[in-house]
């Protein structure tokens, strides 16, 4: 053999190879030091002794297809070489991740399944950079996501924590759109619906609120049940998907809401301070659950009936706006509530809540009916509304709520007599 020939027999001939099999069945051999850069492959070789021959090829996870495998091996091949400087590595990495988003995602997934953390980091950061600053529509475009949030979900009011007037306006538009949606739904159901008129007198309402001995369970008639069910259906149709569907769930939801509302309340009143308002609310809460299917066939004078009807429609609209977001609002309301913590008046707390909800532009559309009900603190209603949102009960209940929210501050301020009607 000449010298040249001898030189040709290079150490590479002595390299060992690992056999890898991808999910599609194809098998290839890879230089050992390159493949061992992947922790998963390393584990298989060392712990289980796999990969030494074609028959004992290491089965790679399903997420690693041959194209991705070759990319990953390119990465490993470069990085396992000890000599390169940081600058060289960085420059390689930057060139390496220049690929379309789909491949980046697949690569991230493949690297993750092989537990190759440096590559996962690299690709994840690249994807994060792609995502940053994009609107939801742009994101859907980039990732070819189906636009399957419901109309309602999309029209959720934006969290306006900075009191941005543009967001306030947007939320008002959303509220209008939601209202339109609801009208449309209502029109669909209008044939099967008879308008139920709440005919209770004011005194009866008062009595009810003050804990009159009506046994709801006993007076359940099938006729009422049906009407109530229809009412619920009507309201249900326009609610977002995550809304609570059954009575049982409603009670649980209410309890959760009560607890969360308390949590929210607690925060704002600097914990430990239980306001009178809260206690009253808790009492009301329980009663409401009990009287869900109450009989509503009582007499009421027509003038009040008109008034109630209007208010109740308004209420229903407000109540139907999205609950979780309201909860978020309540919990995250902060910058407007700084002086709040040490307020001693219970109703003061709720007023501020409500005021701040308005200020933060959370879909409040003022109703423009000129009557006594609007003289009361509408903002108070908003706050109470938010907490009792899950009541999709009868009009009567809603009316009583409206009445209540007027009563409570009146009581607390000792102006009960002002409510004589």
């Amino acid at each position, binding site marked *: 053999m000449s010298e040249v020939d001898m030189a040709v027999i290079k150490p590479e001939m002595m390299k060992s190879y690992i056999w890898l099999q991808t999910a599609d069945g194809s098998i290839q051999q890879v230089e050992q030091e390159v493949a061992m850069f992947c922790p998963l492959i390393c584990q298989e070789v060392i712990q289980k002794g796999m990969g030494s021959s074609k028959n004992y090829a290491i089965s790679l996870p399903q997420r690693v297809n041959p194209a991705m495998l070759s990319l990953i091996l390119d990465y490993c091949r470069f990085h396992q070489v000890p000599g390169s400087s940081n600058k060289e590595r960085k420059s390689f990495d930057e060139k390496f991740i220049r690929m379309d988003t*789909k491949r980046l*995602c*697949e690569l*991230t*997934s493949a690297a*993750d399944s092989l537990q190759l953390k440096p590559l*996962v980091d690299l690709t*994840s*950061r690249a*994807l*994060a950079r792609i*995502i*940053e*600053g*994009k*609107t*939801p529509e742009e*994101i*859907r475009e980039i*990732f*070819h*996501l*189906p*636009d*399957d*949030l419901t109309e309602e*979900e*999309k029209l959720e009011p934006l*969290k306006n*924590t*900075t009191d941005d007037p543009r967001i306030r306006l947007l939320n008002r538009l959303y509220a209008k759109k939601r209202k339109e949606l609801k009208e449309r739904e209502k029109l669909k159901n209008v044939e099967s619906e008879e308008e139920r008129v709440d005919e209770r007198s004011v005194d009866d309402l008062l009595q009810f609120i003050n804990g009159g001995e009506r046994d709801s369970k006993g007076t359940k008639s099938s006729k009422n049940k049906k009407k109530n069910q229809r009412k619920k259906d009507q309201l249900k149709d326009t609610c977002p998907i995550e809304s609570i569907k059954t009575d049982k769930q409603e009670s649980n939801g209410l309890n959760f809401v009560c607890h*969360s509302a308390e*949590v929210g309340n*607690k*925060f*704002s009143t*600097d*914990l*430990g301070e239980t306001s009178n308002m809260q206690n009253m609310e808790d009492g009301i809460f329980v009663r409401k659950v009990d009287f869900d299917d109450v009989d509503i066939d009582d007499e009421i004078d027509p003038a009040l009936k008109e008034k109630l009807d209007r208010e109740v429609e308004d209420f229903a609209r407000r109540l139907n706006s999205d609950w979780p977001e309201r909860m*978020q609002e309540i*919990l*995250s*309301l*902060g*910058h407007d*509530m*700084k*002086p709040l913590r*040490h*307020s*001693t008046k219970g109703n003061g707390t709720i007023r501020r809540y409500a005021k701040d909800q308005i200020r933060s532009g959370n879909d409040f559309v003022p109703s423009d009916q000129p009557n006594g009900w609007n003289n009361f603190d509408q903002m108070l209603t908003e706050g109470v509304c938010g907490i009792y949102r899950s009541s999709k009960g009868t009009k009567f209940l809603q009316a009583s709520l409206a009445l209540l929210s007027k009563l409570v501050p009146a009581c607390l301020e000792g102006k009960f007599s002002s409510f004589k009607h």
Partner: protein
Amino acid sequence: MDITFVLPAQCISYIISLTTPRDASRLSLACPAFKSTADSDSVWEKFLPSDYKEIISNSSSISASSLMITSLSKKDLYFYLCHNPILINNHTTSFSLVQETGKKCYMVGARVLSIAWGDSPQYWNWLSLREFRFPEVVKLREVWWFEIIARIETRILSFKTNYAAYLVFKFVKSRQGFDARPIEFDVYFEGSNNHKRRSALLDPPTNVSPQLSQDRGDGWTEIEMGDFFNENGDDGTVVCRLCEPGSVQKRGIITQGIELRPKYGK
């Protein structure tokens, strides 16, 4: 391609945690699958400061702190801390987060400031009013040597952040002494000689510019005392000092504290 079929949830959540809180909030509107991941605790826990549990447990109200940690989702906790400063260290310091970035923000209350002659009632009085953030604020009756110092450990601040110190105060109607002589401000690392001093009038007459005091929007005014870059929290204590050595009698300033918060763009 539906990304949720390609990438497992933990990958998506890792990627989202590398973006900003604002992006995560936006992502939850993109599609239902993203919504659940983008709102998840695993993402928002990364936006909270790494020692948030420690800080909250150190809060002055034990019931609140345990409630916060256990019953709020991390996302709710994040937004809560952004808008509701919590009191720590026995009601003397307040802690909150900056919404955009999740960086930490502290206000050192008047009680733990070093105020020259602060304990002498003939010079400074301590007030308690329920609307205040801290149980006490301090009001100047009269003094010649006006000096207030705040010290804070850099290791509790967010790393790789440019912080500025602000004096939070307000004037009473009958104040005097702050319109003619400027106050010297100095913010520096204790033990270093690198002082970037500045001086400003706290109460300049209305026609004189620059009007450096800013209205905070909560009834208090603030003025920037200086800034510094916190690299890794290993610069020891940062000292924020203001002083007016006594040429003129001063009266009528109420100090709530000195706030340290991140400052962006010079």
